[in-house]
């Protein structure tokens, strides 16, 4: 991702009223109703905010040329929260729309994410497959949070790992996403995972 020309450009003439913090974002993904907004709310310093975006099928731009003419527009809602790490740094948590076909279309949502959390429900693990596939295909590092409402978990972590076909190095935590300590631990696991990742070497072109 290239840096924006806006920040590179020196400000001329005007004084900034308050210094703007730097921002990073973490994506909270998983199937519909799996607890994404709940996790955001558990760790966010504000009640999760909601905003909307218009997405057009044309913005898929891969192989569906017919969509360009149809201008098929849909409104997608997005819940998010924030954690002020310091006056200079804010982490935004974005709960991705429940249906992956929407966030596949939403480059602004997924571009430049620090990493992701995939929440999975042991009773219907398959609803989180698409989120895992998505992060893997976009090379976005992620951790998996197994959400056990009321402590109900009938499967062992090894079974769940196998069912999700997780790479061994992908951290997986089991807990209740309504609990702030669990949400904190999930995010810490993601940051630790990011610190342990091998540095990618630039690939020569041509």
């Amino acid at each position, binding site marked *: *991702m*290239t*840096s*924006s020309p*806006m920040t590179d450009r020196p*400000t001329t003439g*005007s*004084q*900034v*009223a*308050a*210094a*703007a*913090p*730097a*921002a*990073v*974002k973490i994506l909270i993904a998983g199937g519909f109703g799996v607890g994404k907004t709940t996790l955001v709310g558990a*760790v966010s310093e504000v009640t999760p*905010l909601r*905003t*909307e*975006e*218009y997405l057009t099928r044309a913005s898929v731009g891969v192989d569906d040329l017919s969509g360009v003419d149809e201008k098929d*527009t849909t*409104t997608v809602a*997005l819940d*998010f929260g*924030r*954690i*002020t*790490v*310091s006056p200079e*740094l*804010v*982490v*935004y948590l*974005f709960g991705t729309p429940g249906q992956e076909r929407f966030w596949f279309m939403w480059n*602004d*949502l997924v*571009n*430049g*994410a*620090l990493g992701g959390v995939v929440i999975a429900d042991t009773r219907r693990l398959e609803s989180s497959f698409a989120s895992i596939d998505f992060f893997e295909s976009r*090379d*976005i*590092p992620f951790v998996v949070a197994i959400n056990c409402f009321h402590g109900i978990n009938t499967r062992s972590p090894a079974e769940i790992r196998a069912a999700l076909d997780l790479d061994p190095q992908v951290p997986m935590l089991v807990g209740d996403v309504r609990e*702030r*300590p669990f*949400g*904190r631990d999930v*995010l*810490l696991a993601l*940051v630790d995972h*990011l*610190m342990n*990742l091998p*540095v*990618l070497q*630039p690939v020569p072109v041509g």
Partner: protein
Amino acid sequence: MTPYWADEDEDEHGEGADGAGTMVRPYTITRGRTAPERDDLTLITVLTTTQQELDEYGRPYRPGGRGLQPEHRVILDRCRQPAAVAEIAADLDLPVSVTKILLGDLVAQGLLLARAPLSVARAAGGADLGLLKAVREGLRRL
């Protein structure tokens, strides 16, 4: 915040039976523009209102500036405390794309300063260790 179209909906258009209403009006605010003039505003670009000279009415003095709409003024007021695009959109109760158009107007006029997100994409070398340590420290305090 009350949606900007709430009064109109009730007074002029009944229950807003025209399903297209919510689609059309946001772009009325943007004077028909459906895409921002700049594409570098992201969901987490942080915007801050610049300090401005005030005119005799206590409003920002902008020689040669184009007229601002009420939504522009709400944004300038909101961004006295730095806020991300997504937060501003949520506060205004406007779609992100519409909000970006309004923000682009204000950035172009020098009334808002935009700070792009930190570059953390793995293909660009990923997040640096100092950033990750800072995030980690912040999370530990939760």
